């Protein structure tokens, strides 16, 4: 699958508190409303300006902190097609796959805010259309590819009635 969009660049250690703040705890059962505040405490303009298909690009340890699955869910609901980072915190990474949001590990130092990117999920490449750089990302673990291909964990379980990951 080919994904294209603009890069929204964030720094290192983007916590789930920055993505889905605790002060909006009461919106957790109203995800479309919560999505209007996605990443608000990292960039107050982001939620207003992000376009369907765009990419969130982080540095190291993206998604650290709380286990709230609401964080990747509202990134996805905001229209973001994938998150790229140098590394991800474990729970966020797993949650993102479970909700069907691709998370790609690559050298994001080569991406600037506003760059146009083209991501090929099969080939494992990110083409920076502004600089011409071609970045490689590591393939997901096999179990996760199965879950992502099924459309997330819920769809996976619905399909097989159980885990089918080997």
């Amino acid at each position, binding site marked *: 699958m080919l994904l294209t969009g603009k890069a929204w660049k964030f720094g290192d250690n983007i*916590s789930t508190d920055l993505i889905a703040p605790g*002060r909006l705890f009461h919106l*957790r*059962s109203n995800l479309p409303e919560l999505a209007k505040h996605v990443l608000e405490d990292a960039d107050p303009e982001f939620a207003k300006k992000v376009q369907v298909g765009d990419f969130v690009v982080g540095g190291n340890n993206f998604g650290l902190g709380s286990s709230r699955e609401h964080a990747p869910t509202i990134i996805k609901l905001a229209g973001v097609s994938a998150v790229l980072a140098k590394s991800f915190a474990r729970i966020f990474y797993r949650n993102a796959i479970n909700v069907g949001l691709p998370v790609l590990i690559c050298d994001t130092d080569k991406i600037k805010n506003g760059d146009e990117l083209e991501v090929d999920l099969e080939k494992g490449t990110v083409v920076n259309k502004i600089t011409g750089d071609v970045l490689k990302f590591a393939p997901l*673990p*096999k179990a996760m590819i199965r879950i992502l291909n099924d459309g997330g964990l819920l769809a996976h379980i619905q399909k097989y009635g159980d*885990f089918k*990951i*080997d």
Partner: protein
Amino acid sequence: MGMTLAEKIISQHAGKNVKAGEIALVNVDVCLTQDGTGPLAIRQLQKIDLEKAANPKSTVLFIDHAAPSPRSELSNDHITIRKFAEKTGACLSDVGEGVCHQIIAESYLKPGDILIGADSHTCTGGALCAFSTGMGSTDVAIGIALGKTWLRVPETFKIEVSGEFKKGVYAKDLILHLIGKIGADGATYKALEFCGETIENMNMSSRLTLANMAVEAGAKAGLIASDKTTKKFLKEYGREKDFKAIKADNDAEYEKVIKIDASKLVPIVSFPHTVDNTKTVDQAKGIEVDQIFIGTCTNGRLEDLEIFANIVKGKRKHSKTRLIVVPASKRVFLDALDKGIIKTLVDFGAAVLAPGCGPCVGVHEGILGDGEICLSTMNRNFKGRMGNPKGFIYLASPATCAVASVLGEIADPRRFVNKANSKSKKTK
């Protein structure tokens, strides 16, 4: 080749021997959700018509993060949780019972268990030598319904601690020191195994503090062998029969060994806005503090309240610093009442709130104002954590917080700690 604690416990649940790096399908013994993650987990199960609990007696739905509820939306979430518990027979831990991780340790978890929880600090349970790890709502929902999950067996960092803590230095300082050293992503996807004479001599309260913060280094679990201290803890809670001794094999393979001499440690303070932004208490000296918060799954236990009370007893709280105290559980609250600790704290000037998470997650009970500084015993100081991205959170031990609540600013607790405190660290 021998096995680490993580490999041992996961192998037992996978029905075959597995090593670090392998993927395993495992049975899950205990599942937990809290009121920030439970409603989503429940809705996920409703979506695929799988509203059931495979093991209702060890599925625990907590209402602790926003308890009592400060808003109608959250009250409605609480209704969703209570209904699900009623329908499936799962256990409910409602308003006033306390923080999920404390109650799981007190009443549910056994050495050798696998616990998955929709809360990142689920790793706290590793102190009882149970493989305990945080996941998202959907993963835990499926764990609740099917009684299983999948895990990648983590590589392990062995954290070998020797020597005795100096007066005024605690397990909290040790774990903050470690996170400062390896970084907030220093152990991503790994298990930490705490061992060595210092850990063997450490009481369960302090062990829970260590395991609790494993996730702040990115770790999947923070494990400690089960021993006579574990047995004693279970006995205190009427669960001696749940005890099982488990230790890692001598020839287990570790990805890394980190040695720490506890006698060389000093009190540590984490500066905003990341936990690994650690400095010695000297470097924090003189920082004026608006709010102090004692509590949470990290340091809201009897031992913590006792250390705090022993330092502030007979003194007066600084007039410019407000103090919020939240016992981690009902049992902690009752024990602290029995011991006269709550009276000391209230006399001193504390606002003592109902057991639960209190202001930890920024939803109520102590949201910071713009530019305000909070010194806290909690585990996380991310921007916005206490409900306001314009607030600043510093993390430290209960003793460091106690001294600051007297002086109105951060200072070295070592001068203030009396003998009673250092003794209570060593016994148990």
